[in-house]
């Protein structure tokens, strides 16, 4: 993947994409706001969510051991995975042991993160995504672009075409007379997937929460595809990030209020499934749980970044982010897009090795809306700035970039007011030079602060600014010169107006 600015370039040029994104993000953010406003104690609830997660993380090892013991006592088989490769291998082994060449899947960020589908495909096992949006993405050989609504970048007519072109290739074809009505499209997905649900022997899921004291796994969803996968097959494998643990069943009260409202903007999502190990006569009789690290312990070791492990994958931050709204999820080059992706990916993978990862903390104007809506109070702007410092530090021994040189020079300048005064005087001179060379004071209709002449186009790196924005010509007299000349403004006429 190219670094964010280059990837964003493609997305910004796609007007259909921008219109789809704008509609979708604004619809969900408005819905969210309405249901959040219904809750008097929303702020207190956010704080509680953050505290429960922080307390849990501070004793993560103990809670993981409790979870393992509870699950084992309830008949589940617990596996541990250091990284993606280990986790994928565990899932593939279970599937192979049962002799299957396909598994059905509930939408799960953890399994996308470890690229499980690709790993299973390499073993000759097809992994069928069953969430409608994931199905659209999978059939279209596309990438998800949003945590909650992965096909947010597609409109109804694009979806219709994908169904007509690709459903037949992996099972029951779409009806030939399929229209682009959402109800009909959903109906086509229902029929296409039902045959898979009914015959599947092995299912793969993630979990929104894993309760240590009871061994309860929780999956929150809307369509019922989750229930199908969690209930009908004989074998269930759940890949669970180690940060998903909640100490007690009672902690669900907070998160089952925070998550649906923040995520889909509903008081409650249609279906929440909870199960603990095996229940004789009900649901899968062989249950595996894979506890996944894959960089999470790196995040835990970062005292500023650790708060990112509170994340409950609601995607509220995506829906309010002005950058995400304009670039979409693909520009982030990861299954975790948007503001949370811009911190989570560098935290999980580490910075300083990959230009794409290093570009992510800069993919933000630091406007702070993500922090405002985060149900577990992750201070995303703070973590972004922290990661930017890590990126800079990781490259300090290398060949200096233009930005490195500029920042070092500015630092030297600003550390010494004497040097700054000289520089400011020089800029006044520069003003006259620039104005003389370009005849800019003659530019009319330019409207900059101070209502003065503007520079139209800059050469070199300045073009990043001036491609779409004028820049005011520096004033002849800086404020500090005026202050000195007018004795602190007491004799205003002496300095005159710039």
């Amino acid at each position, binding site marked *: 993947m190219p670094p964010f*600015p280059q990837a*964003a*370039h493609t997305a*910004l040029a796609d007007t259909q994409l921008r219109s789809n994104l704008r509609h979708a993000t604004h619809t969900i953010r408005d819905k969210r706001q309405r249901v959040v406003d219904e809750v008097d104690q929303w702020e207190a609830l956010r704080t509680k969510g953050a505290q429960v997660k922080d307390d849990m993380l501070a004793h993560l090892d103990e809670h993981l051991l409790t979870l393992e013991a509870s699950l084992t006592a309830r008949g589940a088989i617990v596996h541990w995975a250091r990284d993606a490769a280990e986790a994928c291998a565990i899932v593939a082994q279970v599937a192979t042991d049962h002799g299957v060449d396909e598994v059905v899947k509930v939408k799960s960020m953890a399994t996308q993160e470890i690229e499980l589908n690709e790993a299973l495909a390499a073993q000759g096992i097809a992994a069928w995504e069953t969430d409608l949006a994931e199905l659209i993405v999978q059939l279209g050989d596309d990438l998800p672009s949003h945590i909650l609504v992965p096909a947010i970048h597609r409109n109804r007519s694009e979806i219709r075409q994908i169904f007509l072109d690709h459903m037949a290739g992996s099972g029951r074809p779409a009806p030939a007379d399929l229209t682009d009505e959402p109800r009909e499209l959903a109906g086509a997905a229902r029929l296409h997937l039902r045959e898979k649900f009914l015959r599947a022997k092995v299912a793969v899921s993630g979990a929104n929460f894993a309760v240590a004291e009871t061994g309860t796994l929780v999956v929150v969803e809307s369509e019922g595809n989750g229930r199908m996968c969690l209930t009908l097959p004989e074998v269930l494998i759940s890949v669970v990030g180690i940060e998903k643990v909640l100490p007690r069943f009672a902690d669900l009260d907070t998160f089952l209020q925070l998550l649906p409202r923040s995520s889909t903007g509903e008081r409650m999502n249609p279906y929440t499934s909870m199960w603990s190990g095996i229940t004789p006569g009900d649901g899968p009789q062989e249950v595996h749980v894979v506890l996944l690290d894959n960089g999470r312990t790196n995040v835990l070791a970062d005292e500023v970044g650790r708060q990112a492990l509170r994340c409950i994958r609601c995607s509220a931050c995506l829906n309010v982010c*002005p*950058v995400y709204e*304009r670039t979409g999820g693909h520009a982030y080059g990861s299954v975790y897009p948007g503001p949370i992706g811009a911190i989570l990916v560098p935290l999980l993978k580490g910075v300083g090795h990959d230009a794409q990862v290093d570009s992510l903390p800069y*993919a*933000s*104007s*630091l*406007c*702070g*809306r993500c*922090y*405002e809506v985060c149900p577990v109070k992750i201070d995303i*702007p703070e973590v972004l*700035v922290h990661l*930017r*410092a*890590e*990126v*800079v*530090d990781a490259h300090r021994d290398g060949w200096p970039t233009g*930005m*490195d040189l500029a*920042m*070092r020079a*500015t*630092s030297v300048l*600003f*550390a010494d*007011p004497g040097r*700054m005064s000289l520089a400011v005087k020089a800029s006044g001179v520069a003003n006259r030079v620039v104005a003389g060379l370009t005849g800019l004071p003659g530019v009319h209709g*330019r*409207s*900059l*602060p*101070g*209502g*003065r002449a*503007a520079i139209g186009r800059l050469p070199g*790196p300045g073009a990043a*600014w001036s*491609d*779409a*924005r*004028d820049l*005011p010509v*520096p*004033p002849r*007299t*800086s*404020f500090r010169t*005026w*202050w000195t000349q007018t004795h*602190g*403004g007491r004799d*205003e006429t002496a300095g005159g107006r*710039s």
Partner: protein
Amino acid sequence: MLTCINDTMFPETGKAVVRLLRRLGVDVDFPPGQTCCGQPMVNTGYLDEAVPVVRQFTSAFEGYDAVVVPSGSCVGCVRHQHGLVARRSGDPALVDAVAATSPKTYELTEFLVDVLGVTDVGATFAHTVTYHPTCHSLRMLGVGDRPLQLLQQVRRLRLVELPAAEECCGFGGTFALKNAETSVAMGSDKVRHARGTGAEVLVASDNSCLLHLGGMLSREQAGMRVMHLAEILASTQDQPAVVGS
């Protein structure tokens, strides 16, 4: 503190702040040791480079009762990031110095409304304006509707609401350069909303955002002016602010 960008690029804003505060009976000084809050370095990740700048800030403003800044984002940096930079320096004296200066640093409208307790500053400005609340004053500092309270008391001023006012303008410091295309896409929407109000002047409390938005309005030949809030609050019947070049 005036801020580096106002000092070098927008001296009229500084003069307006001085006139306004003097008019309200404040003893104003401009310690020449001041340079920059360090935000450009901090927000781009250059914490080592920010250390001497923050040190310079604390030494320049030592001993004053209040540091008033006509920029929400610079105050945001002073209050929320100077501590981080000081800890990075490993110098306990700097940590203490920051702990002394940060809490007495105010964004202009906070100082007017909370410290001086005024919303009517005796200003007159006979134009239609729309106000863009910048992200850092809105979300990092929580200045709320203080700027609007101040504008509502300005004589002859007509205030029109800016649609989607709380949306970021896309400036974001070095974001405007590192992700110029996204920055401009965000700015275009802000400018479209602003122009749609029919106001003559787009007002904000931060000249860095206005540098970006003004640069776009200028390129579009929109005929709409941008002005810092301080210049409007400083404008009086006798000494009106000039609109238009």
